[in-house]
């Protein structure tokens, strides 16, 4: 597929590291239309959307008491580097509730140093229960099945409504919903077979980038 070919070509020029929703990342952009030569943004990844060339992720940070979110498309040529400063997972598929959480959960220093972990170590899962602000929330997070929120401060009415919206049991038996939300095994194998010839070149270029980065840091 042309999409996949373009993605592989891009990955030979830039190292896109492993990251998950909940990882803290730094992205530098060299946009000719922006002021300054390159701009760097550090933030926690709150969402990953789309597939293929349009794959994107959103980073959130609080700077000068102002919450900011920037969405980056992974294969955009304007991006000059993507680093994972803290590799970890969270309990939820997205962290959009951080908008209504206390600011300390979204604040990360712009000069944060990368935290290294062993290559074959499992990805740590951060099971923090985030405390929310006292005022009105943008969305009723208590009604979504989110495990990373501290819901101890809810009113009785809110708790009852949360129970009402619980996903029913029959959803787990919906075979076609499950099938349509993933790629079947044979098609996955086709894709892997298609990109397998490119693996050696990709791995070599990844090693080159990381060696270059370490040499740059040292």
């Amino acid at each position: 597929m042309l999409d996949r070919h373009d993605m592989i070509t891009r990955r030979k020029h830039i190292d896109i590291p492993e990251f998950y929703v909940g990882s803290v990342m730094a992205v530098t952009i060299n946009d000719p239309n922006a002021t300054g030569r390159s701009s760097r943004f550090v933030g926690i990844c709150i969402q990953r959307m789309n597939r293929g060339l349009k794959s994107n992720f959103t980073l959130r940070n609080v700077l000068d008491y102002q919450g900011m979110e920037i969405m980056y498309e992974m294969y955009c040529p304007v991006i000059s580097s993507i680093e994972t400063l803290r590799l970890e997972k969270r309990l939820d598929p997205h962290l959009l509730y951080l908008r209504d959480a206390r600011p300390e959960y979204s604040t990360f220093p712009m000069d944060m140093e990368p935290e290294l972990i062993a290559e074959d170590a499992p990805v740590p899962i951060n099971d923090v229960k985030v405390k929310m602000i006292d005022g009105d929330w943008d969305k009723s997070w208590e009604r979504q099945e989110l495990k990373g929120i501290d819901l101890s401060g809810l009113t009785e009415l809110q708790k009852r409504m949360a129970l009402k919206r619980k996903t029913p049991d029959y959803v787990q038996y919906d075979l076609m919903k499950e099938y349509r939300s993933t790629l079947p095994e044979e098609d996955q194998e086709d894709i892997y077979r298609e990109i397998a010839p490119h693996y050696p070149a990709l791995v070599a270029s990844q090693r080159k980038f990381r060696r270059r980065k370490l040499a740059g840091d040292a």
Partner: protein
Amino acid sequence: GRNYICIYFNYSYRLLLNMSQAEFRKLIPALRIAIRPRSLRMRNIDGPGGRLKRIAGHVTNLIRDERVEHNFPTLSEARNYAERLIAEAIRHGDKHQPTMDLANFYLQEKQLVHKLFKVLVPRYRNSTVSYTKMYKAPTITNRKPAAIDHPKGILELRNNPLPPLEPRPIPTRNWIHNVLLEEARKDFAAEKKMEKELALQNQIEDQQRDQNDEID
């Protein structure tokens, strides 16, 4: 190959592109039938739960009777679920608890759970084609007062013991006109071959005559 899936796969791949990134941990075997990118909306007083229960009813009837007739779109949808259920049963067997729960949900009679694992799984274990077949059934009915004639369909399991729906193909090779045509074709081919050989021989003779003339 799997060309009959590819057309629909590409359409659903475009839909998948716009969804959030789900993990592909659970490996699901591909369906061997073409499916629509969106599921069929089936209006039900009990909502989505009632819709699934109705589909389970059709799947139950299919497993019990091995052939069912109903409205075409509903049966098409139920067909997907039946194929998935049989695929899961073949992959995991009856000792796997989640598969047992699935069979329990979709098969509303408990003997049919045994039939699924003891009869259908061995029947389809080594199959490379779909487990079900779908036909369009006659829709025209004479009803008074006139009503909407919904398209009807027949859904059946493959290799079922019932009399076949498709007529046996009649061998037509020994019909008289086909025999005569076949002989005519052979004669024509032989004639053409002879003409070619004659032409070649004439060409050789002409060349020899030219050479002789030159010598002379």
